[in-house]
């Protein structure tokens, strides 16, 4: 087989894989739409409600803000990025079991359902961030986004990180169920307070920062805020760390998934 033919075959397989994931994502959106109270719009509004609640709480307790980034955008970025990570990671733990029926189609693998779920969550939260930013810019008539490309890259890296963590926890948790519980607790309880959702890292004393900067989600959140305004200080934050964590997590997750795929396909 010539090189061109091989490349053509690879491209065709990649396109097919993409169409499988997109189709599964559409399926999941349809299921959510039919289950949700507000239908299709509810899929988008649910994260917005949560953001509005946190915003009201922030206004009530009068958290200190800076004039570098609009406070609504500042909060929405933190909330949406963290909850995207959380939803992708947590849904990966239970997504395979819920989609057992469609594994009848031999072409569909558990990883495809996880990718579809991650894609849907990322689109929901990306839409939320985009709509809120556009709304704030229209209200204040002062748009500012210094590095949109970098922000998109950070978003994708965080998605990869979440996927890697979710897949790893899923596979390991299949053998050791306690791992699933630990990951759920870790993501819901610990990561929420160490991910810079409600505070900016540079406002904390230097002696406290080493206890938080191990968390790559914090790096993603602060880097995203820095991409909006380059004057936003990000001490001890590194893009290299986020890239490393995302690639390692994704690589490890895919590696152990490949060797344990049959385990996931077997019914519990």
């Amino acid at each position, binding site marked *: 087989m010539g090189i061109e033919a091989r490349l053509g075959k690879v491209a065709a397989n990649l396109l097919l894989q993409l169409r499988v994931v997109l189709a599964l994502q559409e399926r999941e959106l349809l299921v959510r739409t039919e289950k949700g109270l507000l239908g299709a719009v509810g899929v988008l509004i649910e994260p917005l409600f949560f953001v509005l609640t946190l915003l009201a709480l922030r206004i009530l307790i009068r958290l200190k803000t800076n004039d570098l980034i609009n406070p609504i955008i500042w909060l929405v970025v933190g909330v949406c990025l963290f909850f995207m990570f959380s939803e992708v990671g947590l849904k990966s733990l239970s997504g395979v079991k819920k989609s057992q029926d469609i594994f009848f189609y031999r072409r569909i693998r558990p990883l495809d359902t996880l990718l579809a779920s991650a894609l849907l969550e990322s689109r929901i939260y990306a839409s939320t961030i985009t709509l809120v930013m556009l709304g704030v810019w229209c209200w204040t008539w002062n748009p500012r986004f210094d590095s*949109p490309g*970098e922000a998109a890259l950070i978003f994708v890296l965080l998605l990869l990180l979440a996927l890697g963590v979710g897949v790893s926890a899923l596979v390991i948790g299949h053998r050791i169920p306690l791992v699933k519980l630990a990951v759920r607790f870790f993501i819901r309880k610990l990561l929420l307070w160490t991910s810079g959702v409600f505070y900016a890292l540079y406002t904390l004393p230097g002696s406290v920062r080493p206890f938080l900067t191990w968390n790559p989600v914090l790096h993603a959140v602060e880097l995203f805020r820095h991409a909006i305004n380059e004057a936003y200080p990000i001490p001890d934050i590194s893009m290299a760390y986020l890239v490393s964590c995302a690639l390692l997590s994704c690589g490890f997750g895919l590696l152990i998934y490949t060797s344990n795929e049959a385990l996931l396909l077997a019914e519990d």
Partner: protein
Amino acid sequence: MSLQPVPPLKADQAGANSLIKPLFFTGLREQVAGQRRRVPWRRLVSAPVLASAFVCLAAVYCFGIGRDRYRAVAEFVIRQPLPPSTMGSSLLSPTLGSPTVLGSLEDGRYLQVFLGSPEVMQRLYPNPSRFQQLYAPSWPDRWTGLQPGTKRDGQLVFFQRQQSVTPQELSGSVILKTNGFDPQQALQLNRALVAQAQRFVNEVNQGISADQRNFAEQEVVMARVRLNSANNKLNAFQDLHGQLNPVVEKDATTSYLAALESRLVDLKVQEASLRRQFRDSQAPEVSYVADQVQELKREIGAERSKVVSPQGRNLNRLSIQAQNLQNEVAFATEALKAAMLAADNSRLESQRQLKFLVMLREPQLPAEPEPNWRWKAFLASLGGLLVVWGVGGFLVGVVKRT
């Protein structure tokens, strides 16, 4: 691997799973054949083709056509020789910034506005056509630069885009970045803006001090006038009443009356003693002393009434008036002294430099073009495409389902 029997599909998933079927029962070849049966030119406006074309165009522009940009960076901090007194310390005070850092940050924020102002642009580029010529587009990148015929407002926007003034929250320093289409352009603009920043820091402080000096000099003039007026009033009072100092005279009169009363007490004691010695109260020795006592009493009463009576010397009123006038003179003298001291200090302050622009990093001639903008622009294009596909497609899907 053993597959378990598939449970029957639920009703709400049946519709969803119908999306999966066409995927597998219509193979890739059939899809391609189907596409070939369509009109050929419609394939060109399909989403993948448009997206690929967009990415290719972005790559060609960013890495091929796009003009080189050079960047010069300077960093400085605005310091006072005597830092202001520190506020009370708190747990977060190291992170919130010392007063010096906050002061430099404040000046940095003013500079952000000042360096992008029309006045600075006018000083650096007084000739608009010369400015247009310096930043004119060049082949092959006809989109980057100052387009011919741009009005002054558009030139100002372009000028503001060529610079970036970023105060650093943590250290208080200010980073000044300037862009140019060749290294000299970027360096010259950076140095010119640093000079303008230096001028701003000095002018503001010296301007404030000059205003304060003018005010202090006016206060000196007013204090002098007031002192002269008080002195004139006191002199007129003294001339009118023929007395140098009514207060001193009142004190002297009081002493004199006290002496008379003391003498009266002695005479009374002597009279009482003589009355006990002599049986006859009309004896000449007793009468002599009694007459002296009566005379002295009459004299003391007459003197006292002369001092305080309005028809007499009225020393009480005069002394109060004199005291007030003297107090007025003393106050005017002190006020003049204070005004003269303030005026002298303002004069010194207006000539002295209150704040210094300390260079932490001098701008250097860029050795090579800035590579970051190409990757940033390309990533921004990809990010935009991702947002349009991811967000736009999703929102369209949600609207369709609604």
